[in-house]
């Protein structure tokens, strides 16, 4: 028997709306039981879709903070090597498809600040970087970038908030006073350079701070023109510099985002798995409800068969009931999921943008479809059983 035979077409179903009417009545007749079965479906749909949304939002929020670094390579000295030399940077410049090359020298420094009476020590990274390069790596929250050759500095958001700095104030590093002219926007965790806890200054000032520092750089950040070329650029840099011996290590940022993608995909799958189990339970409860319903309506099935209902007709009636139950409960589940998630995100995370994405809505749709499918599958056996009843036996049933 084909699905087309059971559900001929929507128009003819609506025209013969007595089937629909019958299904509605039968669901209403057992309202308590119907509601219990519906709650099972609703919980399953909520579980599947909210778990999906949760996993998806986690993924989006993390990959968002990595999205702008997917186009970079970080070149650092190979183990055993101290610095990246000017000559090596020149070799990198010969590689095609590079947008910019940002050599950075850095050093660590402990600074102290007071917070509610206590003195707290904190680690900051001091970077030597050109003004133009800094502009490529981080945006300003307030103030301006330092001028080339000046003794001014720009600080990360973390330092600024810890030390309660505003542009114009001074900080002391190793006995030297630097004027803060700009404060960077908060950026979160980064794998190239950690701007939030960084102090950025000119090479001249850096040399004054660390007169004993070796020639060369600690890190070179390479931004590629096209993210698709990142592997080729990485290979070419290694080829040129590491020809004789391993001098530098090239690390592509997209490796991180790719593996994070994998992690979050697994988390999503796991959460959806939990949702599926609850739907399975719901399916069994539908099966149970419909089975009881066919038992109770045995006589009615007998009457219908006696007046000309075929097996197909009976099958259609019961499946329609299951479909109705599934659609109503799944719709309720989807609405509850969207409004519930919206409330939670608005109140707790204070950011609803991840909910209203296509990928989050996909999970709602998925929950909805699974809810209906569960109901239909649960209703299938009882419907089949009802359709196979012998008319006379069914009529005699009391």
């Amino acid at each position: 028997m084909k699905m087309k035979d059971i559900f001929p077409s929507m128009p003819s179903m609506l025209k013969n709306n007595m089937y629909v009417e019958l299904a509605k009545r039968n669901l209403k007749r057992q309202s308590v039981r119907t509601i219990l079965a519906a709650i099972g479906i609703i919980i399953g749909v909520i579980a599947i879709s909210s778990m999906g949304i949760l996993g998806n939002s986690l993924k989006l929020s993390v990959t968002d903070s990595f999205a702008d670094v997917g186009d970079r390579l970080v070149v650092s000295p190979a183990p055993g090597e101290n610095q990246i030399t000017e000559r090596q940077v020149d070799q990198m410049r010969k590689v095609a498809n590079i947008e910019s090359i940002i050599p950075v020298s850095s050093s660590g420094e402990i600074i102290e600040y007071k917070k509610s009476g206590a003195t707290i020590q904190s680690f900051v990274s001091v970077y030597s970087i050109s003004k133009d390069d800094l502009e490529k790596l981080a945006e300003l929250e307030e103030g301006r970038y330092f001028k080339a050759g000046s003794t001014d500095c720009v600080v990360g958001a973390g330092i600024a908030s810890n030390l309660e700095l505003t542009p114009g104030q001074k900080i002391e590093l190793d006995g030297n006073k630097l004027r803060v002219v700009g404060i960077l926007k908060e950026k979160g965790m980064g794998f190239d350079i950690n701007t939030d806890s960084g102090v950025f200054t000119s090479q001249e000032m850096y040399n004054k701070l660390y007169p004993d520092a070796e020639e060369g750089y600690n890190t070179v950040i390479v931004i590629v023109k096209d993210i698709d070329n990142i592997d080729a650029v990485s290979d070419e840099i290694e080829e040129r510099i590491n020809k004789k011996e391993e001098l530098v290590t090239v690390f592509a940022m997209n490796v991180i985002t790719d593996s994070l993608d994998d992690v979050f995909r697994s988390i999503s799958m796991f959460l959806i798995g939990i949702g599926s189990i609850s739907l399975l339970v719901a399916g069994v409860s539908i099966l149970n409800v419909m089975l009881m319903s066919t038992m109770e309506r045995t006589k009615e099935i007998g009457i219908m068969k006696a007046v000309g209902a075929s097996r197909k007709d009976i099958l259609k009636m019961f499946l329609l009931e299951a479909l109705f139950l599934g659609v109503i409960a799944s719709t309720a589940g989807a609405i509850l999921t969207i409004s519930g998630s919206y409330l939670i995100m608005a109140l707790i995370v204070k950011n609803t943008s991840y909910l209203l994405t296509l990928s989050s809505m996909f999970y709602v749709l998925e929950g909805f479809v699974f809810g209906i499918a569960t109901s239909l599958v649960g209703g299938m056996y009882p419907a089949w059983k009802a359709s196979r009843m012998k008319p006379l036996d069914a009529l005699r049933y009391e």
Partner: protein
Amino acid sequence: MQQAKPSPSPKKKIVPSDRPYPIVYLKDVKRIYTLGNNRIHALNGVSLSIKKGDFVTIMGSSGSGKSTLLNMIGCLDLPTSGKVKINNIDLSKLDDDGLTAIRRNNIGFIFQQFNLIPTLTAIENVEIPMIFNGQSSEKRRRKALSMLKRADLPLEFANHKPNEMSGGQQQRVAIARALANDPPILLADEPTGNLDTRTGNNIMELLKQLNASGTTVIVVTHDPKMEEYSNTSIRIQDGEIIK
């Protein structure tokens, strides 16, 4: 699409014949129930033939096999052995869908306990057979109303549920339902058994009228007074026809 033409085996053509065939034909029909080690011969070799337009009563004491016989004719049950033909169609050649088609288009069944669907109104109960016949809802409504009228149900009861009607009214709804698909054969199993004498007589009068307009009517009863409505009477005892 009023007369069913279920043709399960297209190989076998029904050859038209000048001699009118009986609308109901049974040959050597046996129905044996097996209960544990007991074999109950509910029908023990019944042969009969009923012409189009007949009004037949089947009489006999309780347990004699009347209902079993009627269920055979109504395609609700199949014989253990023997042949049953309705409208010259051999039931043994039909599958479940074929039997359903015969029931739907050739047979109207009336029961002693009315057997209405309690959650549906009178008019909806009458619509049920037409749903399975694929009629549009508009046509169903119209036909159901006219059938209720024909069965003499006061129309203010059309939207009442069975439990809001008297036994006689319920049986009228059941008759209207039996007439819904214009079947050539009406079967009634003790239709007056749950009714008082006066109401019972009214129902029999109604069946008589329907017979007068061409429907073949077969009524099972154990009330000898009902015999006078019929033009043919069959007596059955211990699963065998004795007259």
